[in-house]
């Protein structure tokens, strides 16, 4: 494979391989971030009492991507874990975004449109335009 990689055509098989690697990297990276936040969390709060019996909902800053990713002020373990989870949610989104580019390179306009629709739904959901 290595010798022919320079001018290798973008076949469906090749696209699949790239996507597979992309997904695996995303999962490994997010698992590491979540684990780091988790250790920090257990060291700090391991002895406290949990309260999950009654639903209260997460605080505002843990509900929006902007709040979780941006703003280093008040950076702590719960936000670090949530950041890892956001990375995990982002992997399939990145996969769809990559597919848009792959279909465009293959000049498959029909599937560029189909994939853009899927990407649009995902982005609307994640940016909070659909949560009501």
């Amino acid at each position: 494979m290595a010798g022919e990689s320079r001018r290798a055509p973008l076949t469906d098989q090749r696209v699949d391989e790239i996507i597979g690697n992309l997904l695996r990297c995303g999962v490994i990276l997010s698992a590491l971030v979540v684990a780091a936040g988790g250790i920090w969390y257990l060291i700090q709060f391991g002895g406290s009492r949990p309260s999950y019996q009654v639903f209260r909902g997460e605080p505002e800053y843990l509900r929006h991507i902007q709040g979780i990713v941006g703003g280093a002020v008040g950076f702590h373990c719960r936000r670090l874990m949530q950041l890892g989870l956001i990375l995990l949610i982002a992997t399939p989104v990145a996969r769809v975004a990559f597919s848009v580019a792959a279909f465009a390179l293959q000049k498959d306009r029909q599937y560029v449109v189909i994939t853009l629709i899927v990407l649009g739904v995902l982005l609307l959901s994640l940016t909070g335009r659909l949560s009501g």
Partner: protein
Amino acid sequence: MTILELTVLVGAISVVGGFLGSLTGLGGGVVITPAMVLLLGIDLHYAMGATLISVIATSSGAAAAYVREGISNIRMGMFLEIATTTGAVCGAYAAGKVAPSVLAVVFGVVLLQAAWASTRAHPATRVGEPDDRLALRLNLNGSFPTPEGTRHYKVSHVKTGFGVMFVAGGLSGLLGIGSGAVKVIAMDRAMRVPFKVSTTTSNFMIGVTAAASAGVYLQRGYIDPGLTMPVVLGVLAGSLAGARLLPTAPTKTLRWVFAVVVAVLAAEMIYNGVTGRV
């Protein structure tokens, strides 16, 4: 109970769920949510949020292995994802409006269907189906390598499959599960795709569908990082171990064991929902 103890317990449940889920192909989500609700008394919405995120982890993690075999139908998956993602957003929206007891009953019914489906043989692919015009237009027909050479297949009843996928996405968003069992049914029974192709394509789609629900869940405050952390890490560890043991494991026996576990949890969920305890 302290946070440390709860984390260990939730992590253990998730390891077992992920392990059995990957060995039986049912996915771990179907047992983890009811186990957290019934055994640990965790609120259904928190349990759904944590499990939904773990569904993304297993889907993305397994995809890398599947892709090497080159059998998923990426065009069919992408086209059907229009249906599953819009369904998922609608379902996730509805999850906030429906009473938890109703959710518990629906969850139980879906669990029963998954248990039943897991013990049944998949239908043999029929040959000589007429060409579906939509399948031709969308370039859905495909092929995959087998030991006897490349095998070509046709995709049938695309409209029916698309409709069932919307329902599968809706259930995924409503309950925070992957609903792989429904997705496979749509591709197996309606669209007549070979079983190997439908399982791998369904796995691919599950992550994208769950990401669509996750956006709504996040903004609703269903995703608690402290609770989701042991679920995600546990399910990942369990499903990796399961995938490693898969070639030698007695999958037929395991499938029955898992089906019984799922059926018991389903009955509990329905009972708790009807009596208003969830």
